[in-house]
């Protein structure tokens, strides 16, 4: 048991902190609006220019070859500095691990540097009007044509889809095969003829969602990631990253718990016993999440797989995030109804138990795969 960082890791932390303190922009508008998204892209390009956009990636793609420990340190410093949301996250945290694992060398060289530079902006095309938690029920199809695939159908809930340039998604390429076997993972530029994107408002009113329509959209064979008919297993590799720590690193919640503590101190004159207890609870849970991930990263570093454990991460951080924001609203009293970071954060926290596989699905995974309870 060793909870200390090496001198090299401490040096990495210092370098990250110094750079962030000097460069983090203040007061950007929401990245889930068109205006805000543009402002966030400037920030993403600044991160890239100084090689902080994708620290754990190889240098040739714009990274620093940072270890997973250093990545955790960077995330901690990133959120501690109050740096902006990552509007590139669905590319760099969800698609990229899949491209590293399943992409051809040509796909890797084509996609990764542009993604890191925030030139290609990726949205996720999984859910459909008739397929949410039951992802294998998707009906959007891609039919074989000479040299490529012709896509017809509809995707929805695509985060920041209205502002993205590309979409990665699952499409049914063999309607005769079983539900899971007939799927293929495709990479689609959104400026391809036949694609229509319509943005719409989330709970907070920002245009952070989009639905994407495909009418005879033709993509080349090189758009297939990981093999025809392999879509399900390729996609599942991404869900592990999405549920687990790469999308929601502990630094995010440690920073939020600290802001909550500061809010309680600021509101000392009206701090109720229950709100005070909520601050303690948020702190305990944020630290527990951090410690859990440190143990998990130790396992990863020593070659042990996380597997279904990522469902535990997802359940824990999503529920922690809601509880933390509910306490903030309690601390704010009648100010809670004023539009601001806490009220917006609260609304966003409510999406946590829904996206990346609802918490109901995660609990079933935990029960079946970690506890061994019968599926039927």
């Amino acid at each position, binding site marked *: *048991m*060793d*909870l*200390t*960082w*090496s001198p090299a*890791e401490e040096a990495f932390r210092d370098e990250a902190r110094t750079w962030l303190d000097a460069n983090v922009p203040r007061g950007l508008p929401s990245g889930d609006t068109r205006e805000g998204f543009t402002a966030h892209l400037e920030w993403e390009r600044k991160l890239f220019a100084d090689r902080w956009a994708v620290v754990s990636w190889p240098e040739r793609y714009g990274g620093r070859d940072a270890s997973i*420990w250093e990545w955790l340190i960077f995330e901690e410093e990133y959120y501690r500095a109050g740096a902006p949301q990552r509007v590139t996250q669905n590319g760099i945290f969800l698609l990229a691990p899949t491209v590293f694992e399943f992409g051809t060398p040509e796909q890797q060289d084509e996609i990764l540097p542009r993604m890191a530079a925030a030139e290609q902006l990726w949205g996720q095309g999984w859910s459909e009007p008739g397929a949410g938690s039951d992802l294998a029920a998707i009906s959007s199809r891609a039919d074989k044509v000479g040299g490529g695939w012709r896509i017809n159908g509809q995707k929805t809930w695509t985060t920041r889809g209205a502002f993205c340039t590309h979409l990665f998604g699952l499409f049914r390429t063999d309607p005769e095969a079983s539900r899971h076997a007939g799927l293929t993972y495709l990479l689609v530029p959104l400026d391809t003829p036949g694609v229509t994107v319509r943005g719409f408002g989330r709970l907070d009113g920002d245009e952070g969602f989009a639905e994407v329509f495909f009418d005879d959209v033709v993509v080349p064979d090189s758009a297939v990631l990981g093999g025809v008919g392999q879509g399900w297993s390729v996609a599942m590799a991404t869900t592990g990253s999405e549920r687990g720590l790469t999308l929601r690193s502990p630094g995010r919640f440690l920073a939020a718990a600290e802001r909550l*503590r500061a809010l*309680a*101190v600021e509101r*000392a*004159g*009206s*701090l*109720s*016993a229950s*709100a*005070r*207890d909520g*601050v*303690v609870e948020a*702190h*305990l*849970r944020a*630290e*527990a*999440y951090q*410690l*859990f991930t*440190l*143990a998990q*990263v*130790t*396992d990863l570093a*020593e070659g042990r797989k996380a597997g279904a454990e990522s469902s*535990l991460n997802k*359940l*824990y951080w999503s529920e922690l995030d809601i509880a933390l924001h509910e306490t903030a609203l309690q601390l704010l009293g009648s100010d809670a109804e004023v539009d601001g970071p806490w009220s917006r954060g609260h609304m966003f926290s409510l999406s946590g138990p829904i996206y990346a596989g609802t918490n*109901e699905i*995660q*609990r*079933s995974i*935990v*029960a*079946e795969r*970690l*506890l*061994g*309870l*019968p*599926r*039927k």
Partner: protein
Amino acid sequence: MRFAPTPDQLELAGAVRELLADACPPEVVRAAWGPEGDTGRTALWRQLADLGLLGAMVPEDVGGLGLTEVDLVPLFVEVGRAAVPLPVAETVAVLAPVLAGVGSTDLAGLVAGDLVGTAELAGSGILPWAGCSDRALVRSGAELRLVDLTGVDLAPVVTVDGSRAAARTPSVAGTSVTADPAELERAWLRGALAAAAQLVGLAHRQLDLAVAHTRERKQFGVPVGSQQAVKHLLANVLLDLRFCVPVVQRAAVSLASGAPEARAHVAAAKAMTSEMAGRTARSTIQAHGAIGYTVEYDLHLYVKRSWALAASWGDVAHHRAVVADSLGLPPAVDPSALPWEAAR
């Protein structure tokens, strides 16, 4: 950074687990509920002594294993899993290291398993394990005192966990051991840490029983564990439990290294595990249905021990208050005043 037990630590915990699976099955815990206590305890204590466990935290030059709090956590998880009906935590984590620090003549007897020692520092007036112990470490003000229980006329107290052989703390002065505030705090924190680790093991055992039961038990022609409501109930237990484990481990690391945060980290561990214990007991009883609400079945042995430990060595309110203090939170005000009245 390497936040995982070492192979040596896992091996020792594995040995303890094997020994207890064999030497402390539910029948042994159940037998300890008898009105006369149980002589099987003596044999079990001897086996723990033979493994060297009783002197785990005693320096090697005085006959112990010289282990730290970090090594101890996996061991106490196993003690909890088996609900050992003996003051293992009190002897190993509290009494023996305190006596080793002052060079007591009782130390050798404790390490060898000739003596059984209990400890109670909260000042509750109830001494757990009094009925099966030879020595007791108690607190008088800010002073630790050692009481020889031999021949003392005990007033037994019926507690929810009948295996704890509790009695009123006897009004015997005993002998002064130490009045060093740092020693006292360390003893208290070790006791709380050992309780937290046992709560983890106890929860594991309750969950294992619930999983085994709900896989087997059929209703409506299917195992009850295939029902989503039951699955989610037990998934929550695992979630709760798994996130307590690293918090307990961190508390041990901080305590072993003498970090100033040790007090807050132990408080976090004990607060979280104590709350988890309450939820786990409730959920695992529910998952069992009627059989969970009996003393015929084994579940209650583990549930009741976890209730006892959740309230010992500082309860949830105390430990959460310690954490609040470490965060520099201002005191709460009473918000019951109407808008035009002064806050209280």
